[in-house]
């Protein structure tokens, strides 16, 4: 669990320690420190097929607000307020252990962040009204496809 007080959801923070051998760890670090390749491919979530390349364009569109807070290495997204989303697709959990990672949960997270994590600052922008006015279901599917496409190739052992 999280030891140092970190904000409203402090009681919910969970950390996982994953042990791998040194060579694999080095490969993992090397990959993590290299910016992700250009996004490609599609992903179907809840019946809608999102396109990763389109998703990146939406992500980097200032009107959609993502890059006001988030950063992705190798792009012009350099927000400092929210988490850095580089290689988001390789995460095992969403929001420090509140949800297990899956494209379905990621889609749910984008719509329901304030309900899922208390004190979540993203919910100040992503109100249901704002989402309705600014993000179509298709665009959300594209964003999910983009974030999910950024994976490191080193596979981590499953959680025990």
């Amino acid at each position, binding site marked *: 669990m999280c030891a*140092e*007080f970190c904000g*409203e959801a*402090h*009681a919910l923070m969970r950390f996982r320690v994953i042990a791998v051998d040194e060579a694999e760890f080095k490969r993992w670090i090397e990959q993590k420190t290299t910016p992700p390749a250009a996004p490609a491919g599609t992903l179907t979530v809840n019946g809608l097929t999102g396109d990763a390349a389109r998703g990146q364009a939406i992500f980097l569109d200032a009107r959609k607000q993502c890059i006001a807070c988030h950063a992705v290495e190798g792009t012009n997204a350099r927000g400092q*307020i929210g988490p850095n989303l580089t290689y988001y697709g390789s995460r095992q959990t969403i929001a420090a252990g509140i949800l297990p990672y899956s494209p379905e949960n990621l889609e749910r997270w984008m719509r329901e962040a304030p309900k899922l994590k208390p004190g979540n600052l993203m919910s100040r922008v992503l109100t249901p009204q704002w989402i309705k006015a600014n993000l179509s279901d298709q665009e959300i599917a594209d964003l999910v496809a983009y974030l999910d496409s950024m994976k490191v190739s080193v596979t981590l052992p499953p959680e025990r």
Partner: protein
Amino acid sequence: MAIAERTAGTVSPPSVNVRPGWAGWLSTTDHKRIGIMYLVSAFVFFLIGGIEALLMRIQLGTPDNTFLTPDVYNQMFTMHGTTMIFLGLMPLNVGLGNYIVPLMIGARDMAFPRLNALSIWLFIFGGLMLYVSFFVGGAPNVGWFAYAPLTQKQFAPTAGVDYWIIGIGLTGVASIAGALNFIVTILNMRAPGMTLNRMPLFVWMQLIVAFIVIFAFPVLTVATIQLLFDRHFGTRFFLPNLGGDAVLWQHLFWFFGHPEVYILILPTMGIISEVLPTFSRKPIFGYAFVAYSGVAIGFLGFLVWAHHMFAVGLGPLANAFFGAASFLIAVPTGVKIFNWLATMWQGSLNLTTSMLYAISFISMFVIGGISGITLASPPINVQQTDSYYVVAHMHYVLFGGAIQGVFAGVFYWFPKMTGRMLNERLGKWQFWLMLISFNLTFFPMHLSGNEGMPRRIYTYESEMGWNLWNLISTIGSLLLAVAFLIFLWNVLTSIRRGPIAPADPWDGATLEWAVSSPPPVYNFAVTPRVRSRRPLWDEKYPHLHEVNGSHEAPVARPRGPLHDGFEHETPAAMEPIHLPSPTYAPLIVSVGIMILGFGIIYLGDFGLVAASAMLVGLLIMAMGVLSWVRISHVDSPHHGH
């Protein structure tokens, strides 16, 4: 003009210009009234801080509880810590010191009575500003330690942190001004014959604390102003991604924060160093050791701050140094504890409520001290930091120690301050209930902490195995609240119907017991002369003067008309008693500073309105300063008569 002539032969009580009713309190410069204002306002804040603690305990009583939302819970623990430290314990000690120190050293008031009034008003307004935050978007919710970068505007967008900065700032100015006042008063205004090594130990500890305040508080003030600039004016002191340093905040904060612990505990060590000898009917054992170990603690207190930061990763050298320095503090503390035990040893113990609290202070403080020693070891600390074990440790020191010490002092000096005795029966009920429920509340936290329960979490899951300990803590805290209600009831009834207190109800040895209860406005009609560490025992038991350590035999003689029991040096006795006039100037200056503070909070967001508020505040402050200068001139001993 408050000058009273003492005519030769008879002593006529000086007529003193005190305004009646509320005006008398708002305009007072009398250290005794200011002391009472400190005690009452600090106790009110203390009760509010207690209610915040109760709400947290109710939330944590059962797993997965939804009694408080996470945000409200975070506001509660931030305000609980801030309140108890800055608005509760510290001003309770300052209040006792304000009332008792001038009496103990045979002075008529503090050295700077108007500055003293400024301190109380700035403290009250600082406290009120902190609580205003609840009504304007939410109280601070970042912890009383306010670690960077959580305090930055984007992560803590409400004005709560700004109110915290300004509120702490005002009480900090009050503390620094008060500390200067104590230092000058104690160094310059002792009665003839009271050398430093004859000062009562309570005065010694207040003097040491005043020096700690002078060195520690400015660091906090600077750090919080840097934080204010980070939040509103684009600086990056504590922002690592922009070249600042979040760990710098921790260094600055704990450089203040650890000495602050001694600011809270040393005065109460002074209290029990008065209470234990009185009720053991023996002089304190090892006076010089008790006094100078206090100096050692005050000094070492500045060399241990990074033991709050062992988990930061400062490196083995720094950790070893700060761990060793922390262990070292156990030495002077242990010296004090053995001296207190030796004071009681073979004494004729009189187990009043005050004495029970003093004894309980020693035992509970030792438990807190032992857990403190374990925490001083970096490897153990890394396991236990930020767990409930630390919460248990800190409450054994600050509640089992400091609060119980304050109660020892309150039961000891209440008769002197009010002229009425507290009910001892209720006092003992309160004491035993408090001792039991205190242990019920805080002892299980050692266990839940060792089982891994982190601090500052608003809830926990049932499977974690902490349910029982938390339930016991919550039940204990509710019983603790009952003990405080008994005290409140005792005070409210005793102040009206309690037995009239004699001047010296406990057969005390120090000068405050030489004057009536409550003392006259001018304290001493004639400045007493001091020949030993126990001037009043000298007077009452002249045959014991050698035991008392007096070097000159006192002259037995009938008591004077005011029963102050001291021989009067005739030329000095002819001097008129000079007391400062009542004045509203400190109050006006404080109101101005508070309005200035509100302006500063909103300067970043509402520039023009806030700037005008700041201007109004400055104008009011200037008016207050002008009236202050005028009254100082009128009051000057060379003016008029």
